[in-house]
């Protein structure tokens, strides 16, 4: 217990931990030849990016800047360079993220995060550099969250910022929506009482001290009970609240809570009826990973598809995207593509996964865009980040190369070994690999070039040449993987 509170105290300093060199020391890095999309500022087609001591020192067009001879050069020719994605709200990577007890504001995800969880490996593979981990949605007051990088052997290694706020949820669990609201209000009222009581006693102490009943050198040492401190800070707006709002029915309650607390709202689906109310929140909202949902008209039985991002974009409400833990929503390109498919601009979608969440987390001075002076968190992709065929080649976090696809052992195993099998070796039993298997690059058989295009019925139709350039960054474009 004490150790935990000490750790919390250490993490409690909300200052961003300076880049701790966790890998081999590489002070000078240069990324050249790629298409740089800084998010803030114009796109540079053939650019150079210099990194020193974990920070970006220079972004310029190729030829405008000299690359230091000592720098390790990453050739990004034909590739795209972007800041890593920032996920503003996630439950991944924890062992058990929904407590049995609903009201546990003193807990912290620091105790639940498992650095070896596959989730972090997957996020790194997907180009995510910063994740804000919080308790699950099926909680009342879930405890403190923290911002981590998906790389590191211990939670301390991974920490970027601690004690980012308390997770709250209006999720209607057993007992229903009104019960949940009532419990939440009761918790807040309790906290107010505790605070009032504390201050009353402190005032009495001061009075007695002034009256001489207490020796002058005695100081007020009492602290608010640790288990209640979180919520007390919450009502004093000293701590942020991250409130999950499942649907339109809870938006009004969220508005009421937002009057009293410093809240960031995380919206679920089914919000089309309450866009105006959401706009009254007056601050950016975080969108749950599922962006599209269907609603059926009772009268005509006709279905309409809604996209939460589009609804908010149309209403002028700033929003931030998140990335899911599994399924298609665990791909950044899928989330961005969904937004653009529904009419949100590319720029807004990209910002909603980079600078937007960085601002929301208060870390925009350090991350969220490729800007000189900011931390060197960047990803190099084989193509347009909004294309399904683009893969993340390299991830640099705070100036350290933390991911290279050519060295991704798991991908190699999943694709490499299997691809060998495809070359007509006799079937043999092989140990089944870990379950998550969706992110796989083109097999090294490179079927697009080697085999007849149809393959399926072998009718000898004229072989179709695949078209790499216009559609996709081109895994077929001779990646060598």
């Amino acid at each position, binding site marked *: 217990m004490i150790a935990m509170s000490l750790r919390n105290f250490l993490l409690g300093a909300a200052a961003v931990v300076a880049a701790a060199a966790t890998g081999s020391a590489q002070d000078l890095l240069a990324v050249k030849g790629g298409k740089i999309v800084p998010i803030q500022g114009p796109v540079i087609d053939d650019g150079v990016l210099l990194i020193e001591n974990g920070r970006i020192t220079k972004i310029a067009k190729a030829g405008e800047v000299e690359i230091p001879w000592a720098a390790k050069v990453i050739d990004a020719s034909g590739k795209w360079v972007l800041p890593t994605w920032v996920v503003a709200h996630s439950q991944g990577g924890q062992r058990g993220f929904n407590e049995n007890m609903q009201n546990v504001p003193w807990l912290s995800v620091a105790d639940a995060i498992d650095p070896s969880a596959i989730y972090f490996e997957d996020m790194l593979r997907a180009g995510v550099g910063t994740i804000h981990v919080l308790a699950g949605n099926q909680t009342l007051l879930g405890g403190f969250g923290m911002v981590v990088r998906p790389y590191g052997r211990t939670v301390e290694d991974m920490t970027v910022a601690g004690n980012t706020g308390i997770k709250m949820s209006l999720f209607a669990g057993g007992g229903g929506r009104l019960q949940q609201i009532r419990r939440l209000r009761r918790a807040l009222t309790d906290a107010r009482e505790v605070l009032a009581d504390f201050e009353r006693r402190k005032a009495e102490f001061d009075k007695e001290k002034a009256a001489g009943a207490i020796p002058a050198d005695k100081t007020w040492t009492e602290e608010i009970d640790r288990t209640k401190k979180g919520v007390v800070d919450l009502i004093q707006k000293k701590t942020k609240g991250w409130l999950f709002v499942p649907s339109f029915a809870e938006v009004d309650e969220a508005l009421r809570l937002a009057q009293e607390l410093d809240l960031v709202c995380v919206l679920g689906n089914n919000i089309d009826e309450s866009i105006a109310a959401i706009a009254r929140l007056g601050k950016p909202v975080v969108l749950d990973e599922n962006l599209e949902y*269907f609603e059926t008209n009772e009268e*005509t*039985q*006709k*279905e309409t598809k809604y996209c939460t991002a589009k609804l908010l974009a149309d209403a002028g409400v700033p929003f931030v995207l998140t990335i899911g833990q*599994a*399924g*298609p929503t665990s791909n950044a390109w*899928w989330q*961005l*593509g*969904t937004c*653009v*498919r529904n009419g949100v601009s590319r720029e807004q979608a990209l910002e909603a996964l980079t600078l937007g969440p960085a601002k929301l987390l208060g870390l925009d001075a350090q991350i969220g865009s490729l800007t000189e002076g900011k931390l060197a968190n960047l990803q190099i992709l084989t193509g347009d980040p*909004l*294309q*399904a*065929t683009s893969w993340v080649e390299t991830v640099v976090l705070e100036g350290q190369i933390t991911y290279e696809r050519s060295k991704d052992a798991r991908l190699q195993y*999943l*694709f490499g070994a*299997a*691809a060998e*099998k*495809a070359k*007509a070796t*006799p*079937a043999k039993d092989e140990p*089944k690999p870990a*379950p*998550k*298997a*969706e*992110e*796989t*690059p*083109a*097999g090294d*058989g*490179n*079927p*697009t070039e*080697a*085999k*007849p*295009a*149809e*393959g*399926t*019925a*072998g009718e000898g*139709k*004229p072989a*179709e040449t*695949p*078209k790499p350039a*216009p*559609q*996709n960054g081109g*895994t*077929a474009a001779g990646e060598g993987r």
Partner: protein
Amino acid sequence: MPRPHFAPTLSLMALLATASLAAQTETRAPAKADGPIAFTHARLLPGGAAAIADGVLVVHNGRIAAIGGADTPIPEGASVVDCRGKTITPGLIDASFRTAANVADANEQGSEITPQLRALDTLDPEDKLLLRARAAGVTAVHVMPGTRSVIGGLGCVVKTAGSEPRTMLLKEDATLHITLGAEPSMGNRAIRGGEVDSIYYRRPTTRMGVVWEVRRSFFDAKQALETVAGAPQPADPGTVVLQKVLQGQLTAVTTARSEQDLRTALRIADEFGYKTVLDEAQDAHLVLDELAAAKTTVLLGAPSASLVAGTGAQDGAEPRSATVAQLAARGIPFVITTGTNLQALDLVREAMFATRNGLSPAQALDAVTLEPAKLLGIADRTGSLQKGKDADFVVWSTDPLDPAAVAESVHIDGISVLAPR
């Protein structure tokens, strides 16, 4: 108003009164004039032929009248739709499609072997899932009875729009659905000498039992065939269907997810000498040699999903995204479907994921257009943009395999079933 043009070979269709395709649902745009319509300046992906960058597609009387480059002659009086920046593909075909009626009404639990039952009887043209698929570019689907019975019954191939199922039919009684694995045995209980108070006290209760049921049915049907050759038709309609399969007049579709079940499916087919294609087939990457040797087609179900449907996980199936590329590399015929997986995405997005995982865009598109058409035997009518074929096509906002692509209009028999936004 253009009427659907039924091919003369389908005599069943000819018997029916021409059904009016008047706007029954709100999504169908008012029918265009009877004259030809030309879609110009579109990027055409005809399927089975080279792509055309700046092309013209002319549609008349429910059929494709002409397709070609920018210099294709446009007939007199044709209305012109400028498709600059858009891509036109054939309508997508989902070779293993689950309707909303599937669980309850397409799974007859009264008996495990019901070869004569027909999924066509459960079809509702306004089925929710059908409408969703149509809005996402699917113009034809193959619907089978569910996976809870060992031999569920007959599947049919229909277009996704029409006033009633008969007018939507492309092929009636197209396939026989067999399911292997633990799923058909779910819910059955062993008779252990206690009270037998429900119909569920019966075989099979294990995967072994499931295989036994299949073999027994085919064995009996084969025997009946051999002993009553020349005698009048046996009265049992189920046996008639099984005999059709044995005689090669009907293709079996076997749903098998795990490696073990895939091998078993091929083995049984081999034993009784009938033709089967493999549905779902998540473990196909482990049996590539057997698949190649059997010269069978694989209907890969929801290749983007990481979780398997039904009892697949119980059976030991583990999907891999690399499967689709490996099948292509080995030259094993395959199509991409949505199948029974609740996590399946729209068919076009499944194809999109396949390009991420190693298929070329052309292969991916063919796997959801021309290849399923050939598999289902409807390639003479649909599945590619060719002069004379039915005008089943989709106008996409951009390349269909782009995550930002949307089906702007979907046409079946030349009639727009999804109005442009």
